[in-house]
């Protein structure tokens, strides 16, 4: 009975120490790296999650919005706990809790019952529905299901229920973000376009970004310009709410009225060309005013470009305060360049962040030696290569598309670098390579407060640079011999 595989019964064995030692050395070799890179089917330690996670992040960015996962309930728990761990904040979301009978009869009953309960109990202003695997495979028709839900009065007919198909077997978290954001904007702006009306505001989209500090930084920049704005999918309050003895289920997010009126904006700026691609395409065709899609502003050049674009769109000069801030950032960069110049880095993460890391490093004369995207495209590869080609420090740097962190491990142990930049999941490869990991990506599960430290703009450049350089100086202090342990560095 016990042996369904029909294997021969064998004695329990202990792997000899010498064998463990041999394999431990072998996995650090070129030979192993080649075998590792020859993989076609097994993915080991991927640096990306699935679509619905991103959809939930977008949903959390709107006022009074309850994210609602249509699918198995385990998915919801996984998404929520990921955000809980990263932000160390609550992340309320509901599920339609589909089970076996859903596979047979479809998920409509679960969805209807779930919407009714979520609406009654948690009193949201909007429920953002997105899917995990199960309804996608059995072919649930969300359009019809939600229409029927309103007919059955599970939720009021005029209650906003944007929905997005976010199958986990397609794309990754940034695409789910894009799909959900698009649906939310389509839903809220329906019938809201007014001929001749202009809100005078800038609509800003940050892209998939789980750093609340970045959101606050964007606002600070726009306020310095004195430009009125609507920040779409603004998670800064949702995931950075004060502890004052009261739990608020919806502590922040873009006001729904503002989001609705965003279609009459003066200009719309979508940052993160990879995580806002579909949304931007739709905005271009439907929103009033001007539309611009730009990279996430990491480093000086990309921040300069953003400020000049804002200046151009609103006919306002770059404010003195930001000019001074730029000067301070450059001051630090020149002060600190000697601690980072020529250092080699391995970087990995989402496309929009990756482009940012690379341009920032090149500006500092550092080398982004291994560049890895676990869910990349030819377009991204080209764009990264163009950045490398434009700098002498980009020479001999390598780009790896659709590889994972086990590939990355092979890279950093066979072709060493001084540090890695990415999310917490890179800590295993970094430890094996005995190099520091700078946690600028998502998620960060093993350090406190980093999601509040902005990385974008001039201030973000200052933050990244001081973190990196001081760590390198720490390493010198910790590892140098006594004769070279000096007061000044």
């Amino acid at each position, binding site marked *: 009975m016990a042996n369904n595989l029909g294997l021969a019964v064998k004695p329990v064995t202990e792997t000899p120490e010498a064998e463990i030692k041999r394999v431990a050395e072998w996995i650090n070799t070129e030979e192993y790296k080649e075998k590792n890179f020859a993989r076609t089917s097994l993915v080991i330690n991927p640096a990306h999650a699935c679509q619905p996670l991103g959809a939930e992040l977008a949903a959390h960015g709107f006022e009074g919005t309850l994210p609602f996962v249509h699918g198995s309930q385990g998915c919801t728990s996984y998404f929520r706990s990921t955000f809980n761990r990263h932000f160390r904040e609550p992340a309320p979301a509901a*599920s339609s809790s589909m089970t076996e009978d859903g596979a047979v009869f479809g998920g409509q009953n679960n969805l209807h019952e779930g919407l009714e309960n979520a609406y009654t*109990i948690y009193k949201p202003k909007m429920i953002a529905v997105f899917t995990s695997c199960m309804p996608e495979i059995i072919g649930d028709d969300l359009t019809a299901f939600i229409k029927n839900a309103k007919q059955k009065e599970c939720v009021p007919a005029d209650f906003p229920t944007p929905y997005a198909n976010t199958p986990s077997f397609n794309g990754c978290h940034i695409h789910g973000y894009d799909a959900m954001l698009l649906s939310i904007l389509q839903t809220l702006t329906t019938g809201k376009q007014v001929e001749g009306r202009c809100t005078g505001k800038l609509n800003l989209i940050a892209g998939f970004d789980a750093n609340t500090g970045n959101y606050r930084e964007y606002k600070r920049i726009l306020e310095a310009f004195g430009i009125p704005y609507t920040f779409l999918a603004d998670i800064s309050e949702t995931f950075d709410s004060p*502890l004052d*003895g009261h739990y608020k289920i919806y502590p922040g997010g873009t006001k729904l009225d503002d989001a609705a009126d965003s279609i009459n904006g003066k200009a719309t700026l979508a940052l993160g060309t990879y995580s806002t691609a579909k949304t931007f395409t739709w905005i271009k065709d439907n929103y009033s005013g001007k539309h611009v899609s730009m990279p996430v502003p990491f480093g000086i050049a990309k921040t300069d470009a953003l400020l000049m674009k804002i200046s151009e769109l609103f006919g306002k000069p770059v404010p003195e305060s930001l000019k001074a801030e730029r000067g301070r950032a450059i001051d630090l960069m020149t002060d600190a360049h000697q601690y980072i110049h020529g250092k080699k880095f391995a970087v990995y993460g989402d496309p929009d962040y990756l482009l940012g890391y690379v341009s920032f490093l090149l500006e500092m004369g550092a080398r982004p030696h291994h560049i890895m995207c676990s869910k990349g495209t030819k377009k991204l590869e080209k764009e990264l290569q163009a950045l490398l080609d434009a700098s002498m420090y980009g020479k001999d740097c390598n780009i790896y598309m659709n590889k994972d962190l086990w590939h990355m491990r092979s890279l950093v142990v066979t072709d060493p670098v001084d540090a890695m930049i990415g999310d917490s999941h890179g800590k295993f490869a970094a430890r094996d390579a005995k190099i520091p990991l700078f946690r600028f990506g998502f998620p960060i599960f093993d350090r406190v407060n980093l999601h509040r430290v902005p990385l974008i703009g001039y201030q973000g450049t200052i933050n990244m640079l001081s973190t990196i350089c001081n760590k390198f100086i720490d390493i010198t202090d910790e590892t140098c011999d006594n004769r070279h342990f000096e007061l000044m560095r």
Partner: protein
Amino acid sequence: MSHAIKTIEGITKESTQEMIDKSLEVYSEKAKKKRAPHLAPNDQASGSACVKSNRKTVPGVMSARGCAYAGAKGVVWGPIRDMVHVSHGPVGCGWYSWGTRRNLMSGTTGVDSFAMQFTSDFQEKDIVYGGDKKLKTLLQEAKELFPLAKGISVLSECPVGLIGDDINSVAKTSSKELDIPIIPCNCEGFRGVSQSLGHHISNDTIRDYIIETREFPEPIGPYDIALIGEYNIGGDAWSTKPLLEECGLNVKSVWTGDGEMEKIAATHQVKLNVIHCYRSMNYMCKVMEEKYGIPWIELNFFGPTKIKESLRKLAELFDDSIKEKVEAVIAKYDPIMQAVIEEYKPRLEGKKVMLYVGGLRPRHTINAYEDLGMSCVGSGYEFAHGDDYDRTSVEMPEATVVYDDVSEYEFEQFADTLKPDLIGSGIKEKYLFQKMGIPFRQMHSWDYSGPYHGYLGFPTFAKDVDMAINSPTWSLVKAPF
């Protein structure tokens, strides 16, 4: 069994029922009807469950439950350190459950220990054409890249079962070709109502594919036991295994914390199974009892009172030499535990705790809090069954609230009424209650601390509870202006 009836001042069946009724007011009639049987005041004298359990979650209420895959990958299979555990399907499930349970492992990662994320990362084409071919290839790749792995588990995610892939057949063929045990586990997340079915399915796969396939090379002795349902959260097994060994017993295998596949496969040879987490592994204890005549005993390693009681209960099953050793162990640790209690009890006496965890701790930890002078004023499980609630009844004070698969709303309402000094629950609950100003400890993961099991664990547990409740930071919540 007769138990002293514990009471809490101000808590009566009526007051608890009133609180429950109030929490249900918000629901529709249909939802109220479904939720009401899962909430009730405890009847301590009855010794039996006061709530319904192991039922489908009511859609939309915001449950903390996970799925069958979570029970299989996260709980039963994942902690076996020398196997490659493949999350078969799309990338997410494996990624979310990667390193998030804190089942610690010995060995060298990627060499003879595999606390990593292996997945087939299903794409659209795998859904359309099926993933069996991909699975076959990836098994070869795993064998080649990780030659010291003792086995491979294939843990199905939702799509696999829905598109009708036959992982069992692939596992069987590849297992022969690669000469390595490959265990197919049909634990798709949509199966069952919670993690619990994933435990059961995984137990069944151990029964069908693993047990009896290995034998211990040395002769079996009278003190050879296995430790079942110990997952080494924060190093728990590194406390309980040495403790049992100090009592003169040989722990031949641990299921499955820091576990070794071959030793698990040879467990049919032991003389006794000691089970800690009954919910997730009672199935295999019962199988081993029926098939191999191995008796099993449920123990509790939380807090000195229960540890002492458990060790004496265990000694009863052995000869005098073990009984003497157990008494010597108790005599050795009693004063150390007493010192811990003397240090912390004055600061914790009279404090109230509410619990909501998985399938064991909502009852097993109650007495550890009581050792510190605290009382449990509410408890419940994500995925327990009736037999768990039977066992809970005697541990909880009379008339305190019992909640099964509690919704976030209900839990918040109960906490708001009962005003506990501490809540022990999971990461999804943690920040909600901390925003309310209520101290909190994650009781699935020991909140990045541990171990909490055994004599080694209790001082850490006591320190953490004290730290959470008495942190001076809580006094700053209310602004002076």
